[in-house]
């Protein structure tokens, strides 16, 4: 959890002051039984009314001071907890933005969102409660015991026995309870999954008329959860009776010892009352403590999850001075000798690139090697899972190579500041995503200072102008994730967003898959006519669309089985021919 502590650092003062004031307040509470004992022994025993009144005013004074202390404590605790949560949210958000694509794939967006919201909320209340109560309750328990010793050592021995036994019982119950709650949590997660799965698959389920089976499966899952929940809850329900019995047996023992001590003349009746009061204070605090431990266990679980996410290494820092990977050691990484053709420096070159997602996995890309020069159009084609998206992801460094190197303008991408690199290279991803705001806002994501004319031009080229105008023009509101646009419209808008940037390298990763042929053709024509110096990569599943490309790379199972022009490949590459004839 050490990565979480950093976020509390700015609140050291609050973290000290909040429990401290709580302790002040608790100290006052510990003195109250003594005041009452004094009232009984000095006031009532002697019939001194003025003394009784005086002691009552002392109690009222304690109440006022205690109120002030505890308000102060609450304030500092709230400030620390809220501040902690705020900074943690900021830190986590920034961290997520720096994750590499393979880490994002590994975590899943839903998990990331839960960490950001639910988990941090739970942590906030955990910190708040801890600061307020975690020191206070043990302090009162121990304090009450110490106070009891000041009243009478022999009688207080009862405390010395009861408190350890009690603590042992409470923590044993808690520790034994945790695995039970874990299994409840797992069963709940499973039920959540089942519910979501049923909703997303509603068409398939109904098409196969499987509703009855679904209901049966769900019933079983709810019953299992119910059994686990009852089991866990019944177990924790032991907590109250057990503490109640132990404390009150202590009370009986205390009264008996007290009676013996009074009988021998060692203590007064008032002292016995004080001892009894201390015992009941302990009971109250232990109940609070047990509840607190539950809150804290929950918060710790959330904390561990958030911490785990923070420990995922931040994607890809620029490795300043990186002269390329060791694997290509024999080959100098200087740009000049890299671009052998006509002394020109290739915009993008792949040098014996291999990629593995994780240690021990099969290679997703094997020994890919080719150069691309300025203004060229390169087609990437291949079957599902052949590595097209991974290959393209290497250029803007969404993924890292595991061997070889990917160079942009003759420099290893790993030596770039990722931000600078991505200024040069724009990728239109397979899944078209828009953001809440206007159409204009969305296009300005590509170029923050774009004028309306530029925006309109980009929309026209992306074949998006007509439907944007048929709505509310550039001011059309885009709902979250662009829900109010169809799949094809979203793709066209995200292409427009990329075009407006006029990047050095444009990658279209199967980004017109939702368009019909006519629109797609018009789009491709508009893009290629206005390309200028931009180097274009087009990932496609249709050979026909790549006929005009300067170079086509055919991938199969991560290997480049053919590189060349459409016509050449038709002659030389079996795989390509198969795709083309399909």
């Amino acid at each position, binding site marked *: 959890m050490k990565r979480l502590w950093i976020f509390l650092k700015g609140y050291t003062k609050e973290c000290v002051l909040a429990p401290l004031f709580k302790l002040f307040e608790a100290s006052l509470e510990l003195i109250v039984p003594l005041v009452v004992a004094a009232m009984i022994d000095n006031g009532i025993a002697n019939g001194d009314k003025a003394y009784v009144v005086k002691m009552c005013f002392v109690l009222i004074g304690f109440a006022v001071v205690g*109120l002030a202390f505890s308000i102060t404590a609450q304030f500092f605790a709230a400030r620390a907890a809220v501040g902690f949560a705020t900074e943690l949210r900021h830190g986590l958000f920034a961290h997520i933005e720096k994750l590499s694509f393979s880490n994002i794939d590994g975590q899943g967006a839903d998990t990331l969102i839960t960490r950001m919201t639910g988990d941090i909320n739970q942590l*906030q209340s955990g910190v708040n409660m801890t600061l307020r109560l975690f020191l206070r309750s043990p302090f009162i328990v121990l304090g009450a015991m110490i106070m009891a010793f000041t009243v009478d050592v022999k009688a207080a021995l009862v405390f010395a026995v009861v408190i350890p036994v009690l603590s042992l019982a409470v923590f044993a119950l808690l520790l034994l309870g945790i695995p039970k709650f874990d299994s409840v949590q797992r069963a709940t997660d499973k039920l959540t999954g089942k519910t979501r799965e049923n909703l997303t698959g509603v068409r398939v389920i109904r098409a196969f008329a499987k509703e009855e089976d679904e209901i049966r499966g769900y019933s079983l899952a709810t019953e299992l959860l119910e059994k686990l929940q009852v089991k866990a809850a019944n177990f924790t329900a032991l907590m109250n009776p057990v503490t109640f019995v132990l404390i009150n047996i202590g009370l009986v023992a205390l009264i*008996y010892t007290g009676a013996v001590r009074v009988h021998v003349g060692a203590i007064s009746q008032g002292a016995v009352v004080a001892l009894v009061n201390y015992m009941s204070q302990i009971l109250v605090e232990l109940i609070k403590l047990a509840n607190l431990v539950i809150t804290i266990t929950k918060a710790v679980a959330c904390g561990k999850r958030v911490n785990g996410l923070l420990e995922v290494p931040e994607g890809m820092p620029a490795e300043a001075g990186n002269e390329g990977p060791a694997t290509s050691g024999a080959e100098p990484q200087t740009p000049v000798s890299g671009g052998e053709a006509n002394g020109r420096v290739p915009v993008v070159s792949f040098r014996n690139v291999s990629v593995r997602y994780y240690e021990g996995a099969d290679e997703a890309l094997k020994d890919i090697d080719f150069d691309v020069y300025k203004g060229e159009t390169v087609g990437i084609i291949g*079957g599902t899972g052949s590595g097209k998206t991974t290959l393209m992801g290497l250029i803007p460094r969404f993924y890292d190579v595991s061997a070889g190197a990917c160079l942009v303008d003759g420099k290893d991408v790993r030596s770039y500041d990722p931000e600078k690199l991505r200024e040069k290279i724009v990728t239109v991803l397979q899944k078209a995503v828009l953001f809440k705001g206007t159409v204009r806002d969305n296009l300005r994501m590509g170029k923050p200072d774009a004028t309306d004319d530029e925006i309109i031009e980009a929309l026209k080229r992306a074949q998006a102008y007509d439907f944007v105008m048929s709505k509310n023009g550039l001011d059309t509101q885009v709902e979250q994730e662009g829900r109010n646009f169809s799949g094809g419209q979203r793709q066209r808008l995200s292409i427009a967003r990329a075009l407006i940037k006029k990047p050095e390298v444009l990658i279209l990763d199967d980004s017109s898959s939702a368009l019909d042929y006519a629109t797609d053709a018009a789009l491709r024509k508009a893009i290629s006519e206005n390309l200028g110096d931009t180097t274009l990569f087009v990932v496609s599943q249709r050979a026909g669309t790549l006929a005009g490309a300067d170079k086509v790379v055919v991938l199969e199972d991560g290997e480049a089985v053919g590189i060349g022009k459409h016509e050449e490949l038709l002659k030389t590459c079996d795989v390509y021919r198969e795709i083309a004839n399909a």
Partner: protein
Amino acid sequence: MNKIKTNKATLVKVLKYLKPHFPLIAVTIVLSVAVVLLSLYLPRLTGQAVDLIKHADEVDFFTELLKILIKMLEVIVLTAALQWVLSKCNNTVTYRVIRDLRRDAFNRIQKLPLSYLDTKAHGELVSRVINDVEQFADGLLIGFTQLFTGVVTIIGTLFFMLRVNLIVTAVVVLVTPVSLFVAAFIAKHTHDMFKVQSETKGEQTALINETVGNIKTVIAYNREGERLERFDEINRKLQKCSLRAIFYSSLVNPSTRFVNSLVYAGVGLAGGLGAINGALTVGELTCLLSYANQYTKPFNEISGVVTELQNAFVCIERVFEIIEKEPETAEKTRRLEDVKGSVDLKNVYFSYVPERKLIEDLNLSVKPGRKIAIVGPTGCGKTTVINLLMRFYDVNSGSVNVDGFDVRDVTRKSLRQSYGMVLQDIWLKHDTVRNNLLFANPDATEEEMIAAAKAAHAHSFIKRLPKGYDTVLSENGGGLSEGQKQLLCIARVMLKLPPMLILDEATSSIDTRTEHKIQDAFSRMMNGRTSFIVAHRLSTIQNADVILVMKDGHVLEQGRHEDLLANKGFYYTLYNSRNAV
């Protein structure tokens, strides 16, 4: 007024769910009264014991004190035992009610029309079935037990206190309600702060969803900085309003504790003076002081209970909204049997929303065993036709007939079972590959399953999975590529081949080469079966018996591939655009 009415209606519905548990609830009530009274009796016994311990050499051990101590032990053990049984009863009732609510909500979802489910965010429905039900039960359990035991404690304490001393009781009764007012005052003033807080939280969650949900796009466009700035702005706003809300609401505890301390001092004063006057003993004073503490506790809790219950009601109303949602129109009992596969659409009109017309006057007559392809630009109504064929939606007017029966006159189950379907939306269960393949036909043999997987060209990659056919797919098939998942969907339908087929962009995620390879299997599948194929790759449908060319909800042209090309109409344009660069 209205609110009270709906609350009352909701309460009636809640009671319906509690009804099967009434015997247990009755036990609960009796037990909690017993527990409260017993735990109140204990301080009284303590007081009596203290009174026996007056001065040195005056303690009467064996006759009186021991008797009282033994009585105390009995009370203690009995209270604890009853308390445990009480919690067990409560837990049983609570979690059974949760189970029943979830089961009913889920059952209803199975019967809700797609027109409802398609418009609802799934996340929200899931949250109702899981979180809202849970929160309701928590609220109800805490609310009910605290409210009930609170009231019993107050009455019981008053009763015991009155038996000890009238004046001291009067002090307690008069001062304690002050804490209620304080709590109510604070709650009223913090309500607005919490509202602001939850609004800000909502704003932040929306931003998180949008950014984190689409983090790849954000990174691709270098928008991390700008997004973080926007996030921080809301985050700072949230910090400010959270601090206010949390701090002010956390004043409730110290304030009520303050009032309690005043009550305590008041009891000390009245009791102390009373003791001097001989109106009560020291033991009785001890007893009253501990009653004073117990009496104020429920008052502090009750103020929290009200919010808890309100919250529980809000949650349960959301759940009831699902449970009470109008299901699909009632079923006819006739089953569609021995389907030949003739399908007729007559004068069909349909639209999802009345303002936006979609399908108008669609007519189509399909003979058994024919292959019908539906093509057209995005949004032309291709998938809608499928929705009508499967009766996911009902036509607005006109009719859809299978073998001469209006689909509305036969059971949905028998209709849908007559179709085999592969959809563009790929859906797999969180289960093993095997169970996913056997989804439609659990009785298929191992050989049949493997044959289907081979035909769908899925066998080779399944073999390469860590546990082959027993590999568990994560939720919605994560870990497999879209194309691989689609191949599994195809294998799934191959295991159970009804008389009619619907392939809605069934190969959209599969590369052309694999698609080409599985064409054989497809043609075998379609042989002799009425098939509807939606595709935007025109190459796959050239041998269809009829091609329907749709645009904007209308059928523009229909005919065979060659005829349509010869017509040089819309199909001709579509077809020729596919190879242009």
